[in-house]
C-alpha cells in the first residue's frame, strides 16, 4: 500500500478552482516529482496534503485519512512540509529554527542537530546566526534541515530551486537523493525545473490546470519527446 495516496482531490481559493480531481500515489522510500507550468496546481497539491488549504476528496497517509486535519495535526503524523518561500523564521537563530523543527519530538535534540549537520556542515558552525541573514541557498538548506529534525516519514518539498543559482539547486537535489538513499526518506517534490527533478525522482506526475495530464516513471517521461515538448518545455 502506498504511504500517501490522493484520490480525486479538489481545492479552491475562493471562487478559483486550483485542483480539479488530482489523484496520485507515493510509495514508501520513493522520490516522486510533481511537475507542470505556473498555476497548474503543484503548490496547491502539497498544501492540500499538509492542510494549509481547504480541500475535498480523499487523502490517505499511512492508512489514515487526512480529511479535515489542519497543518499542526498533519505535521504530527510525520509529514514535513517545506513550503514555497521556505518558511524559515528569519528573526530567529539557526539553532532556534532547528529546535522548532523538532517541536513535536520529546527530549534532547543535540543528536539530531549533529545528524542534520552531517548533511549541511556549515550549520554546526553558524547556529547563532539569524536565519534572515543567510543566503537564499542556505535558507533553503536550513528549511530542509529543520524539516529533518522531526524525523519525518515524508517530506513535502515545494520548489526548492526557486531563486537559486543552478549550482546551488544541484547541491540541494543531491542532498535530497542522499537523504532518500541513506535514511529511506520518502519525498514528494514540486518543481518548475523538470530536468533536474526527473533526474532525482523515480516517478513523476505532470499537472495541467488542476489535473494530472501525464504520469509515469521519470525515465519514460524524460525520454518521451512529445511529453517533454508539450508539458515540460525543454
Amino acid at each position, binding site marked *: 500500500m502506498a504511504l500517501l495516496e490522493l484520490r480525486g482531490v479538489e481545492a479552491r481559493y475562493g471562487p478559483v478552482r486550483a485542483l480539479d480531481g488530482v489523484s496520485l500515489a507515493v510509495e514508501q522510500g520513493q522520490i516522486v516529482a510533481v511537475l507542470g507550468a505556473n498555476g497548474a496546481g503543484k503548490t496547491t497539491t502539497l498544501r492540500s496534503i499538509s492542510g*494549509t488549504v481547504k480541500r475535498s476528496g480523499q487523502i490517505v497517509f499511512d492508512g489514515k485519512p487526512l480529511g479535515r486535519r*489542519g497543518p*499542526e495535526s498533519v505535521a504530527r503524523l510525520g509529514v514535513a512540509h517545506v*513550503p514555497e518561500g521556505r*518558511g524559515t*523564521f*528569519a528573526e530567529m537563530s539557526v539553532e532556534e529554527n532547528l*529546535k522548532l523543527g523538532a*517541536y513535536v519530538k520529546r527530549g534532547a535534540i543535540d543528536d539530531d542537530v549533529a545528524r542534520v549537520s552531517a548533511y549541511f556542515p556549515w550549520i554546526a558552525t553558524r547556529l547563532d546566526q539569524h536565519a534572515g*541573514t543567510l543566503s537564499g541557498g542556505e535558507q533553503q538548506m536550513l528549511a530542509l534541515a529543520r524539516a529533518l529534525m522531526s524525523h519525518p516519514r515524508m517530506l513535502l518539498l515545494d520548489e526548492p530551486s526557486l531563486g537559486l543559482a543552478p549550482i546551488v539547486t544541484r547541491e540541494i537535489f543531491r542532498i535530497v537523493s542522499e537523504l532518500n538513499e541513506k535514511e529511506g526518506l520518502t519525498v514528494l517534490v514540486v518543481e518548475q525545473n523538470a530536468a533536474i527533478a526527473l533526474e532525482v525522482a523515480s516517478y513523476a506526475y505532470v499537472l495541467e490546470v488542476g489535473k494530472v495530464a501525464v504520469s509515469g516513471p521519470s525515465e519514460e517521461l524524460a525520454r518521451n519527446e512529445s511529453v517533454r515538448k508539450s508539458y515540460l518545455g525543454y
Partner: protein
Amino acid sequence: MAEFFQQVVAGLASGAIFAALALALVLIHRATGVINFAQGEMAMFTTYIAWTLIENHGLNMWLAFAVTLVFAFGLGVGLQRTVIRPIERASILTTVIVTIGLVLIFNGLAGLIWSAEVRAFPSPFPNDTWVIGGVAISQQDVGTFLVVLALVAILWAFFQFTKIGLALRASALNPDASRLVGVRVGWMLAIGWGLAAVLGAVAGILTAPTVFLDPNMMQAVLIYAFAAAVLGGIDSPFGAVAGGLMLGVGLNLIGTYVDFVGASLRLPVALLVILVVLLVKPAGLFGKTVTRRV
C-alpha cells in the same frame, strides 16, 4: 538635589507599573496584531478578585495574590478562546470595537459585583522609607520596582529558554510556518493572552495600594501604558519596559519642575508623547527593522 532623586525613584516605581501593563499590550499586539483596550479593565477586575479573596474569604495576602494570578491567566486564555478567536479574521475595526466592549463589560461587572465604592487595598510592602544620603526612598516604591523587574526577567527567561516560549515567539513571528512544524498556534495565542492578563493583574495589585481600588483605577494607567508601549515600540518587549520606566521618571520630573504641568496635566503629557512618537518615529525608540536577505 534630594528631591530630584526622590522623584526619580518614585518615577521608576510608577514607571514599572506602566511597563508591566505596556508589556501586556505588546505581548498581545506582537502575537495577534490586536490592541487590547480592555487590558486595564482586566487588570482592575483581577485586582478585585484579590481584594475579595483577602477581605471576604480571609485568605492570606500572598496566597490571594497567587490565586489571583492563576485566575488572571485563566481569564486571559478564556477570553481569547471565546471572544477573540471567533473574530480572528475580522477587520481591525471589529477587534477594536470588541475589546472596547470588553472594557465596558468588565467595568460594569466590577461596579455591579463590588459597587463603585473606593476601597483600601493592602500593600505587600512596608509603608516605611529608607533615608540614604538625605534621600528618602519609599520601600513601597522599591518593592514595586523590584517585583516588576523580577517578573520581566522571569518572562524573558520563559520566552528565551523554554520550548513553549520558543513556540510562542514562533507563532507571533510566522503563524503559518509554525503550524507546519506542529505548533498549535491557536493555543499559543491563548497562552499569550493569559500571560498578558497575569502581567496586568500584577500591575493592578501594585497600583491599588496607592491609588485605592475602584472600577476606574486602571484607566489612567492604561493610557500611560499605551504611551510607554508606543514610546518603546509597540512590537518591542524591551521597548515597553524601557518606555514605561522612561515615561514614569519623565512624568514625575516634568510634574515636579514644570510648574504649569504639576499633577493635573500629567495625563495630557502622556497623550502628547503618544502623538509625537507616532508622528516622528512610528516604530518607537526600540522598534527594530530586521535585516533580511531575499
